[in-house]
């Protein structure tokens, strides 16, 4: 059976979700998105620049068939996030939203109180809410309780590339909630993506690690392989860690004994 995962009414095969920000240009972004194999791409909602008529639209450069996941990035209050989510739904005509309510400009850590409140309102309005949150299991449970379709703890601050800073909390979150857990933010390189999957994350969401790599297209391939490798390792079941050696070759039948 195919190893798929679902969110709301949608079922996906790829476990890598990618962002569309920070690319040097649209052609590079398009090649990286294709190379990533992602089926879901995040987009932001912003004021249209009314002075720049006829400028190339982001949407023309997103490969056909990729599902858009509008975000509420840079919203600092529940109200702003709710309004942005509604506009995103009007743009996309889909009910998915990556809900962000930022509490601190320097770290971009979430304001979890406002996040839960915004999630509660949007769930009632029929949104499939995927909240970007911190690695706190209690917040994850509250987000599940208000009806979020998944929880997406950060591995490390957005765009930091620090990797999965607290893998144990990510595991505790997985034990705590029944909804899918996606690691969102913090990934720096392919081994980080693999680690997230080995921990049992349903999927990984990233942007900067690919977009700002020296070769974004090659890094997209690397992330795809990292996610696939990590997922297979999780399914295969890794050996327990041991302090001492356990020989792979027989210790008997040696010559000269």
């Amino acid at each position: 059976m195919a190893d798929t995962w679902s969110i709301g009414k949608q079922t996906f095969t790829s476990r890598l979700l990618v962002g569309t920000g920070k690319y040097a240009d649209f052609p590079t972004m398009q090649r990286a998105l294709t190379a990533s194999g992602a089926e879901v791409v995040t987009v932001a909602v912003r004021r249209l620049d009314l002075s720049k008529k006829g400028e190339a639209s982001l949407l023309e450069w997103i490969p056909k068939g990729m599902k858009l996941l509008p975000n509420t990035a840079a919203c600092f209050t529940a109200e702003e996030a709710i309004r942005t989510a509604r506009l995103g739904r009007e743009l996309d005509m889909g009910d998915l939203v990556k809900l962000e309510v930022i509490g601190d400009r320097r770290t971009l850590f979430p304001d979890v109180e406002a996040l839960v409140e915004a999630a509660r309102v949007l769930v009632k309005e029929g949104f499939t809410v995927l909240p970007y949150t911190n690695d706190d299991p209690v917040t994850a449970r509250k987000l599940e309780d208000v009806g979020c379709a998944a929880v997406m703890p950060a591995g490390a601050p957005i765009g930091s590339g620090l990797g999965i800073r607290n893998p144990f909390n990510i595991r505790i979150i997985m034990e705590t909630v029944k909804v899918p857990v996606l690691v969102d933010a913090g990934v720096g390189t392919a081994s980080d993506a693999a680690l997230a999957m080995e921990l049992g994350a349903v999927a990984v969401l990233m942007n900067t690690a690919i977009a700002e790599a020296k070769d974004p297209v090659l890094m997209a391939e690397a992330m795809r392989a990292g996610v696939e490798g990590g997922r297979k390792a999780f399914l295969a079941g890794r050996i327990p860690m041991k302090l001492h050696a356990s020989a792979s070759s027989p210790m008997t039948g040696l010559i000269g004994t």
Partner: protein
Amino acid sequence: MQVRLNGELREIPDGMTVARLLAHLGVKAPRVAVEVNEAVVTKDRYEAHKIGPGDTVEIVAFVGGG
């Protein structure tokens, strides 16, 4: 009449609907979403929804993001 359009005060002709405003601005309607006074105006209401003096209008589109 004066409205606040994407954060800036602007003069637009009186009695404009959302559809007329988008045409006036040369904006392609399918690619944008519109909010008037903090409430989304859905595409099926563009022809009917009249913009009044002092209204706050936001016209948004998707841009790259994570």
